[in-house]
Each structure stands twice: as C-alpha cells, then as structure tokens.
C-alpha cells in the first residue's frame, strides 16, 4: 500500500517535471521561430542587477541557458516595471492569486459536487439535463453579476474593487502590503489547522449522530466555527495596526472569492459529468484531463474576476503586460502561471490517489448521467429552435440592411445616426435609449445596437464553426489514430497520443492564448 503510494507520488512528480520541460522547450522554440532575441529581455540591465546565466548583450541565449534561467528565476527585466526583474514582479503578485485560487478551489469542489448531485438525483433525466445546463450556462453566471450588483452597488456593503483601501493604509507607510498579506495567509493556515484538529478529534462523534445530513451539517458548522476562531484570534494577536490592515485586505477579498468560487463550482459540476472524468492515462491518481481542463477554465475565471475587480493579482498583471507589449513579463508570467497550475494539478492528483479506492466493476459500468424513464423530446426541440433563431439572426442582418436599414445609419461598425435637434435640445446624446428608430438603442458612438447584435451572430457562427471544424477534424483523426494503434497492439503509443491531448488541455487556454497573441503580433 505505502510502496504503491510512494511510487505514485514519484511518478506524478516525474510527470510534472516532464510537462514543465516540454512546455518550457515549446515556449523557447516558439520564441526562436518568431526571431525574438532573448538577450533583449535582459537589456538594458539596471546596474544593480547582473543575472548569472546571461551571456551578455547581443549574444544569443540557448535552450540550456533558458532552462537554467527559468529555474533560477532569471527571466529578464520587465519593461513596464523597469528596473524590476520579471521574477520580483511575479513573486509579488503570484502568491496573492494562488491564495485566492486555492481558497476558491477548496470551496468550489464540494460546492460543485453539491450542484452535480442536486441535479442528478432530484429531477428525472428529462428535466435534469435541461435544468442543469440552464443553471450552469444561464443562471449562475448571471447570479454572479446580480451578487455584485446587490452587495457592492445597491447595498454598498462590500468594496467594488481594488486590493486595499488607501485611506486606511496611508498613515502606515513603513508597512508593506505583502507583509500584511503573508500574515493573512498564516492566519488562514492556523484556521485550517484548528478546524482540521477539531475534525480529527470529533470524527468518531459525528458518526454516532443519527440522520446523516444532520451530522454533515453539524460537522460543517463546527468546522466553520473552529476555522473562524483560529483565523480571527490569530489576526487579533498581530496587534494594531496590522490587524485592521489585514481586515481591510480580507474585506476586499470577500466578493472576488465568492464570485470565483461560484464560477469554479459550475465548471467543476459541468466537467465531472463528462467522459473525460474516467480517463486516467497513467493509472491511479494521475493527472486527468478533466481536472486539467477544470483548472484551465478556473484560471480564466480568476483572470476575469481580477480584471473586473482591478484586484492586483498575477492575471491582471499578465493582461497589463500584454497590452503594454512587455514581452519579458508576458513570457515570464505565462511560464510561472503554467508552472503553478501544473503543480496544483499534481498535488490534487496525489491527494486523489491517496484517498481513492479502486472503483468496483459495478461503479465502472455505471453511467455518469443516470437516465430515468423515457427521454423527452422538448429539450432537443428547444435547442434546435434556439439554434434556428440564431441562424435567423445571421440571415436577418443582410436582409434588413438591404430593405429597411440605411447602411449609413445602421451599419454595425461605421454607422452613425446624428441625434435630432430636439433630442440635443433636451440634453440627450449617444448612447440613446431604445426607441422606434433604434429598437435596442445606440452605443456611445451612435451605432445601432440591434444591428450589432444581429451582425455578431455571424461572427459567433464563423468563429465557433471554424474552430469547431478544425478541432473536430483533428480530434477525429487522433481518435482514429489511437484506435488503429490499439488494433495493432501498440496501445501504449495510443496512450501517448491521449496523454498529449491531456497535456494540451492542461495548458490554461487563456494565458496560453494571450501568449499566442503576443507571439503572433
């Protein structure tokens, strides 16, 4: 048993290291192909800093130097934070994001399991699918927006953004934000430790409580109380002004944490239903494409939460680095983000491997989504009707432009409708609210919103269709290849193809895409 676990841990560590080096090499090759001179990342160097593995201005940085530089944290100087090194900027921002991400991950997994179980057992399969997809795709993303609107804007209870309130921090110039941040992290650890000890101590007792749901509820409540005790008492023990500054920082973290947790729980609930969940390319407890995809999507959610809240984590920094064409920071941040996600994935794989028992044969045959009774037709009909409606939008735009709409006014990109004298006299200008002339109003530049909405359906179909076509063809080719390999008894080669697929899915798509964007242009 223990020997098996040790082997599993060693294998997962090896896999993580392998994934890392493949990723680094791919980045290096991509940069070389594009003709990016890595030595420019190090120059003009500030006089205070001389990286050990830097051959000097104008001399090319080879693959080994690139690896070594990465391992020793030398990825050049950030242009936008000059003269700070990429590593120092990332080291300041990454822990914050990781902290938020890890907390949200710990909360999102049980919550996602709850969503999944709720829809799996309560409703029959007919309503189940429809409601589940509706909740995941429509309700929860809007709930997130609603929460922001109610708590932050309407009630004014929680701050709308930023990391901290400068008014509170101004008198304490000698205290750095990160010193307080690390104390918050420490307090969280203490809270978890206290709750964990309480859990271990009372584990026997909870088993004796008779209704199981009551025991679960009581256990959760008890752990929450213990966590809060450990957390808040340790915070108070830091003494003023550190306690109140930490409180301010936590206060700014609540809404981002709730939103990220909600979004991540949705992704989790969606993905554990998929067939990806079953596939373990390297046996028990190894990386699964399902978890990799979940992490990648979650990182996209983190990026959006950080942007919406201007919460200065690594995602926001990456975005700013791309927009200001700070190539060293873009490359550095992308690499370290991927590294962090690979290691989270590895840690979760090891945890799962230690916890999980071998599934029984009955469990393996059990369908992921239970089908109860006859399958109703109406969800399919609704989906087809909606798709036809979107298709109708694609057709409607050119038809309307040809008949009713004057292109000078209604063109989605170049149109402009000069507001009438009467409207101007009443103090109205663009964006104008919906009226008979513009059924959905106009945007800030005086263009018709309805026209833009209709025109955009075409963009969505073109982009989604082309991407879908390419990906489906490649996926079909790969599936056929794997099948052929399995037929000629070269199944391990086939597993290699599947593992490559896992590795690709494991790359967080959004930072990767931003890297592609920076590299491409």
């Amino acid at each position, binding site marked *: 048993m223990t020997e098996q676990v040790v082997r599993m841990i060693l294998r997962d560590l090896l896999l993580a290291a392998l994934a890392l080096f493949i990723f680094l090499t791919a980045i290096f090759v991509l940069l070389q192909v594009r003709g990016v001179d890595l030595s420019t990342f190090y120059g003009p160097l500030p006089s205070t800093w001389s990286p050990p593995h830097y051959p000097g201005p104008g001399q090319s940085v080879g693959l080994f130097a690139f690896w070594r530089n990465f391992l020793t944290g030398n990825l050049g100087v950030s242009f936008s934070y000059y003269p700070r090194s990429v590593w120092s900027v990332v080291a300041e921002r990454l822990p914050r994001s990781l902290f938020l991400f890890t907390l949200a991950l710990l909360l999102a997994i049980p919550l996602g399991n709850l969503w999944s179980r709720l829809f799996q057992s309560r409703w029959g399969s007919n309503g189940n699918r*429809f409601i589940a*997809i509706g909740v995941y*795709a*429509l309700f929860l*993303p809007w709930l997130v*927006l609603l929460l922001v*609107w109610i708590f932050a*804007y309407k009630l004014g209870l929680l701050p709308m953004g930023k990391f901290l309130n400068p008014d509170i921090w101004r008198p304490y110039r000698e205290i750095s934000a990160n010193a307080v941040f690390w104390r918050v992290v420490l307090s969280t650890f203490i809270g978890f430790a206290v709750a964990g000890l309480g859990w271990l101590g009372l584990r026997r007792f909870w088993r004796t409580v008779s209704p199981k749901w009551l025991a679960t509820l009581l256990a959760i409540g008890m752990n929450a109380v213990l966590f809060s005790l450990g957390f808040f008492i340790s915070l108070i023990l830091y003494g003023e002004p550190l306690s109140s500054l930490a409180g301010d920082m936590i206060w700014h973290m609540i809404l981002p944490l709730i939103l990220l947790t909600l979004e991540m729980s949705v992704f989790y609930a969606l993905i554990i239903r*998929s*067939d990806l969940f079953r*596939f373990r390319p390297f046996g028990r407890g190894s990386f699964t*494409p399902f978890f990799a995809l979940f992490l990648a999507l979650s990182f*996209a959610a983190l990026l*959006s939460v950080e*942007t919406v809240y201007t919460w200065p984590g690594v995602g926001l920094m990456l*975005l700013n680095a*791309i*927009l200001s064409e700070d190539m060293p920071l873009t490359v550095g941040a992308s690499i370290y983000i991927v590294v962090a996600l690979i290691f989270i994935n590895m840690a979760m794989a090891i945890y799962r491997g230690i916890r999980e028992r071998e599934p029984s044969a009955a469990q393996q045959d059990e369908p992921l989504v239970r*089908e109860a009774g006859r399958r109703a037709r109406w969800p*399919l009909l*609704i*989906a087809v009707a909606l*798709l036809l409606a*979107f298709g109708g939008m694609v057709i409607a735009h050119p038809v309307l432009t040809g008949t009713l709409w004057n292109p000078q006014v209604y063109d989605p*990109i170049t149109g402009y409708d000069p507001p009438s004298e009467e409207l101007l006299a009443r103090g109205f200008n663009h964006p104008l*609210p919906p009226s008979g002339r513009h059924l*959905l109003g106009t*945007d*800030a530049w005086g263009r018709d*919103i309805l026209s*833009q*909405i209709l025109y*955009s*359906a075409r*963009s*969505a179909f*073109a*982009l*989604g269709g*082309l*991407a*879908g076509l390419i*990906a*489906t063809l*490649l*996926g079909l080719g790969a*599936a056929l290849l794997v*099948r052929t390999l399995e037929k000629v008894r070269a199944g391990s080669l086939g597993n290699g193809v*599947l593992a490559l*697929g896992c590795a*690709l*899915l494991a*790359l967080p*798509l*959004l930072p990767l*895409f931003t890297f*592609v*964007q920076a590299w*491409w*242009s």
Partner: protein
Amino acid sequence: MELNLYTSALWLGLLIWPLALFVLRGRPELLGSTGRIGLLKMLSAAFLYIMAISVGIEAALSFYGLLRIPMSWGIMVEMARISGYLVGSAVTRYWWLFWPARLMISLFGFTAYLLGWELKARV
C-alpha cells in the same frame, strides 16, 4: 500579424482539439464501420461543445481587447467597458449597452451545449 476572426479561430481549433478527441473516446466502438449515424451525432456533439466554448473564449479575449474582430458580442461588451458604461450605476442606467450582448453570449453557449448534450445522449 493580428489575431482576426479567422486566425483566432485557427489557433483555437489547434489548441482545443483534444476535447473532441475525448468526446469521441467516450464511445470508441462508434469509430468502427458500423454506427455511421451514431458517429455523426458524436462528431456534431463535439463540434457544438467546441462552438460553445470558443464563443465564450472569444468573448473573454475581446473583453480584454486582445482580438481584432470587427464586431462581436464580446467586442460590444468591451466597448461598453472602455467607454465607461460598466461602472457603478451606469450598468443599470445604460442597460442596453451591456445586457443584450451579455445575454446573447450566454444564450449561444447554452444553445450549443444543450444541443450537443441532447445529440450525444441519443447515440
């Protein structure tokens, strides 16, 4: 070179194809000579899932101003953002700048995903 509609679709397709692979791996027996209609349904499901995801990704990337697409729902949301209509009370007062486009993104993803799911369940 800029990431326009077609190049970004190309990149997206090149990065996300394993999803189609794993959807197809869910029913490996369909790849044989029998079950052409079943295979077609699985392929459509994979296609629709990727369509749903790519519109979401497009919206996210457009929101950050990283794509050069003339007009899309994501671009509409981004324009509402950069002209300052997503801050504070403006979100509700100038609702037509943000909510219709956001609703379309949600609905499109919902439609494609639901259709894919239903097709896959009927194999």
